[in-house]
């Protein structure tokens, strides 16, 4: 019991450390430099070599900026909204495996924080709680634009959540389990799920962008639309919290995508074991996730923004039927034995 607690605490500390200390500053820099590169301009290059210290400067700025609360804002809800953005995003990593099973002093330690059998469901459940920050931020700001932005954003999120969930279900059928290490093991012995389920992956990818309010689906927080949408009235540290929450949820969904479709922490023909395998596995996982994050930034400056009605139409009339057809196809294929799966 003691041992379990310590092991779990260590794993949590590792993952949280990667998320909080790693994702936000690195992504800030990557986003700005890569956007600049795509737009043929230098980007931040004055602070430190290649502008690497820019993140620190931004953090200092956020911390010292004056904290303004709008008059007539619903105080408790207003203060709660940024926290509600971070909490679901930060808790979803518990079901992602990041390495092979380790043996420490005679006991097997699976490298995953939560060994519950309902793994992916827990991920989906926790990420569906992210809607609340949008709604409460929009409502509590005492600002009609924020309210509209918040309602639109949450409608977008719950619509695309459906397509996401159905796509995830299809990816789980061959592995036959909600527990992600099983899915990873399946992909190691057979094939990366993205190859037979390319359509499902496409649906998941598009839904992923919509779930994190990233271009081309960022109408609710776009600058030329409802000012800044649901987080118009949030300044300084609170805005930084929303910002961080967005990056962290991007990372979390990318981790899920990598684990479900791209083999997670495993490499195609290499069998990783032991402590060295664990370190390599973690590196592999982070490498794949960073490719996804680069893709996020790449898409941001490539496509124009969807108008709200186009967005909803895409979610309900295109993605959801496609995801359901994909699920049907995978189910039939598994039963017919074409899919090397549970059957």
């Amino acid at each position, binding site marked *: 019991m003691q041992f379990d607690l310590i092991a779990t605490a260590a794993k949590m500390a590792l993952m949280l450390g990667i998320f909080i200390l790693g994702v936000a500053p690195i992504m800030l820099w990557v986003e700005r430099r890569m956007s600049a590169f795509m737009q043929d301009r230098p980007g931040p290059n004055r602070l430190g070599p290649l502008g690497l210290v820019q993140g620190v400067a931004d953090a200092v700025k956020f911390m010292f900026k004056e904290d303004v609360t709008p008059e007539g804002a619903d105080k408790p809800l207003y203060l709660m909204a940024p926290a509600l953005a971070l909490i679901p995003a930060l808790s979803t990593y518990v079901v992602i495996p990041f390495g092979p099973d380790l043996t420490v002093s005679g006991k097997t330690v699976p490298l995953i924080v939560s060994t519950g*059998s309902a793994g992916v469901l827990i991920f989906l459940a926790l990420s569906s709680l992210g809607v609340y920050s949008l709604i409460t931020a929009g409502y509590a700001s005492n600002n009609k634009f924020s309210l509209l932005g918040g309602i639109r954003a949450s409608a977008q999120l719950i619509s695309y959540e459906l397509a996401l969930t159905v796509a995830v279900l299809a990816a789980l059928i061959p592995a036959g389990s909600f527990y992600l290490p099983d899915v990873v093991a399946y992909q190691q012995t057979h094939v990366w799920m993205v190859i037979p389920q390319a359509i499902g992956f496409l649906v998941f990818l598009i839904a992923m962008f919509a779930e994190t309010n990233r271009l081309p689906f960022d109408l609710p927080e776009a600058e030329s639309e409802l000012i800044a949408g649901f987080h118009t009235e949030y300044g300084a540290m609170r805005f930084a919290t929303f910002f961080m929450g967005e990056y962290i949820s991007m990372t979390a969904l990318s981790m899920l995508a990598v684990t479900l479709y791209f083999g997670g922490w495993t490499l195609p023909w290499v069998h990783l074991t032991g402590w060295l395998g664990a370190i390599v596995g973690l590196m592999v996982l982070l490498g794949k996730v960073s490719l996804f994050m680069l893709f996020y930034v790449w898409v941001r400056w490539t496509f124009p923004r969807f108008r709200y009605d186009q967005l909803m139409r895409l979610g309900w009339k295109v993605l959801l039927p496609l995801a359901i057809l994909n699920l049907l196809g995978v189910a039939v294929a598994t039963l017919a034995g074409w899919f090397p799966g549970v059957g």
Partner: protein
Amino acid sequence: MEAAIFLLFAVIALGSALMVVTHKSPVYATMSLVVTLFSLAVMFVLLGAPFIGALQVLVYAGAIVVLFLFVLMLLNISKEEHQQEGQTVHRWVALLGAGAFVGLLVPLLYRATQGRNAGVLTEEFVSIRAFARDLFTRYLLQFEIVGLLLLVAVVAATVVARKPPAAPSGASGTESPVSEVEP
């Protein structure tokens, strides 16, 4: 350890349930309901139903209550006004009724669970695979009926809540947010 978790989340669930039924602002009541639902999800996991617990958060707290919040914000429902006459008596009667209900039920429950023990929680009981097998074989008819029910609900909600087809001539000048905003 389990008892500690149970007590903590039971207290949270009861406290937020009281907030749900007493708080003046409906938005706060709804957020308290979310807290209650979350605590109940923990209860479900303690009772050996992690699948139901995850579904509770995913469906109930993540979708149904969001729907409540949507409607609250679109209709801009304000807080309940001050008490009307007869309200206090009304409240005491309701409280008495609820108290009598609990008073009658609790001894019954204790007597019902007297002899039996909860038994061992096996892997098989918790497994989602067995749950699914039951759902799709033994309870297939009920499953299909519920699916039909959901379809009917979708159609009904759409029909009931949409804008009336033809606006009468001389429509009111002020429009509520509901008819303007079509999210």
